[in-house]
């Protein structure tokens, strides 16, 4: 029982991290109808910027305090993500309005290649560390309830907490601010939003910036877990089943989907993996999402698809 709970909690915490990446997909899809395959590249790019600037800043400014350096690096990285968003809107999205989904998908793949190359040209292609002072050592809890207690990874716990906070902040931003209201209007209907005077282009820049900052947070968390390296790009591929399971247009869906996929992945790896030779978690997540899709083709919380001939 103790072991089962440990796996369950581990899965939930990984799931939180997946939903963080999935959020980026959902935000952009809602606002611009673009399925953003470049999300993984953005995570890598943001993490690279963060890692490198936190390394460079103490040398440039003579600040020895790592906290200040990290905060400055975060601000600079966030600004860079804003620039990226602005450039993408200016150079790509603006010219591809009203194209088919497949064309837009391919365009974001092109962007992904470009950002991958750019990030590694500017920031280098070695493995870098992000150290934001997350505790590494695991802790034991509930020792008096179970024999042996539960082993919980503190780092994962903090990461999950940060993810939850970010989601809450985004929910507030969407529900309570006028920009958030404009974003929701655009998500509902582009033309109607435009006709009442919401500037579509600015909204897209904002959304891509928000997605970029979400990517930055995801990049920092994943980067401090496994190092900033090219394989961070694959994190986005692991978050894709989360997105379709939760529904492409639903923020809560990204969270619930992330938790389901996280738990499913961990459970399958622990209980099913040894039977078939291990390494199954990546396709198992997709299969799990497929099973859900067979019953709800628009995802758990997606908007109902209505066809008219």
């Amino acid at each position, binding site marked *: 029982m103790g072991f089962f709970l440990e796996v369950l909690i581990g899965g939930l915490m990984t799931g939180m991290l997946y939903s963080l990446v999935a959020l980026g997909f959902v935000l952009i899809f809602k606002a611009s109808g673009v*399925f953003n395959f470049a999300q993984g590249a953005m995570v890598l790019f943001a993490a690279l910027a963060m890692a490198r600037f936190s390394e460079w800043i103490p040398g440039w400014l003579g600040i020895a305090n790592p906290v200040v350096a990290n905060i400055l690096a975060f601000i600079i990285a966030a600004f860079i993500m804003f620039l990226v968003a602005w450039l993408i809107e200016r*150079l*790509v999205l603006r*010219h*591809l309005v009203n*194209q*088919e*989904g*497949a*064309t837009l*998908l*391919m*365009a974001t*793949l*092109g*962007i*992904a*290649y*470009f*950002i*991958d*190359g*750019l990030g*590694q*040209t500017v920031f280098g*292609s070695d493995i870098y560390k992000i150290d934001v002072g997350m505790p590494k050592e695991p802790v034991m809890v509930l020792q008096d309830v179970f024999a042996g207690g539960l082993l919980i990874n503190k780092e994962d716990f903090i990461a999950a907490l940060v993810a939850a906070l970010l989601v809450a902040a985004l929910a507030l931003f969407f529900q309570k601010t006028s920009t958030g209201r404009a974003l929701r209007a655009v998500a509902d209907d582009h033309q109607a939003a435009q006709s009442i005077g919401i500037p579509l282009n600015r909204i897209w820049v904002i959304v891509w910036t928000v997605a970029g900052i979400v990517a930055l947070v995801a990049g920092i968390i994943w980067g401090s877990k496994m190092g900033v390296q090219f394989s961070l790009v694959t994190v986005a*591929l692991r978050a*894709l*089943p989360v*997105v*379709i399971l939760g529904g*492409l247009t639903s923020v809560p869906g990204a969270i619930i989907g992330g938790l389901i996929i996280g738990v499913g992945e961990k459970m399958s790896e622990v209980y099913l993996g040894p039977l*078939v*030779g*291990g*390494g*199954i978690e*990546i*396709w198992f997540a*997709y*299969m799990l*999402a*497929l099973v859900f*899709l*067979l019953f709800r*083709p*628009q*995802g758990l919380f997606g908007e109902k*698809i209505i*066809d*008219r*001939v």
Partner: protein
Amino acid sequence: MIYRENGQFKTSYAADQQIFPILQDRWAILGILVFAFVAVPLLADEYLFRAILIPFLILSLAALGVNLLVGYCGQITLGAGAFMAVGAYAAYNFFVRVDDMPLLAALLLGGATSAAVGVVFGVPSLRVRGLYLAVATLAAQFFWDWAFLRIKWFTNDSSSGSVSVSNLSAFGWDLESPTDVYLFCLLILVVFALLAKNMTRGAIGRQWMAIRDMDVAAEVIGIRPMYAKLSAFAVSSFFLGVAGGLWGFVHLGAWEPAAFSLDRSFQLLFMVIIGGLGSIMGSFFGAAFIVILPIFLNQMLPWLGDLVGVSISTAGVSHAEIMIFGALIVFFLIVEPHGIARLWSTAKEKLRLWPFPH
């Protein structure tokens, strides 16, 4: 003036329905075929064959398969590489485990296996659509990547999934020199391209296109979506399977699952989108573009760097390469979202009116 169908009157149904109704087109195709079968083997050297021509032919075949599914039937797939892998490994198993298995039969059986697998992974298309389907097809990609790495039976108990074949021959024709390999691939490609063209002109192709344009409406006018969608998956996977078999057998000779990774799927999708969705011709254009561009960039960048006095490191070249590749793809999509095939047909329209367009 030269390219005009004036005065070419059709006197029979057969003449009216031929693939190339314009005489000049027929001559052009004949010319291209003669050029490809006779002149190219005489002119090209080994590097050209191995680095450009053979990959181009095989990937054209694969792009044809993807185009049938994505361009004609409207089902976006990101798992094309997986079906190539299934074709390659199935052909390998038939080739190695069955005594005296002819190469061509092994390839076709590999294609058939791939078609069967394609039908299974096409089942979600009956329920989900569009981008949801695209992500769902990734399941095929990751599943088969895993299967060929971990399930030893598929790879005849080789470690890490790498297998190799040698001493290939078809009908007593040894496929040793690059020229032979080139001709073999070209023959298969011509047959399959003809097949694809005729399929898209026939009943089945029209059903696919109806499904693509609007599946609910197609269902209302009596097209069975299940039959149309699954047949598109089957035919597309068959093409991909044969292409995968060729890629493994005659191009690589020895391969591992990474040869058919997700990047390959993306590459194939790039080909059909850049070439032109729903166009047989476009598949060839797209394949040529995607095969030649990286090689071109790879050769050009160091030269350009020397020109302006900057020496670019190997890593720098590879990073700049993917940057330019990505940028060019975006550029192409913005300039001509309907692909090179559209440019081609615009050019043909212009040519018909030339030299007096008004």
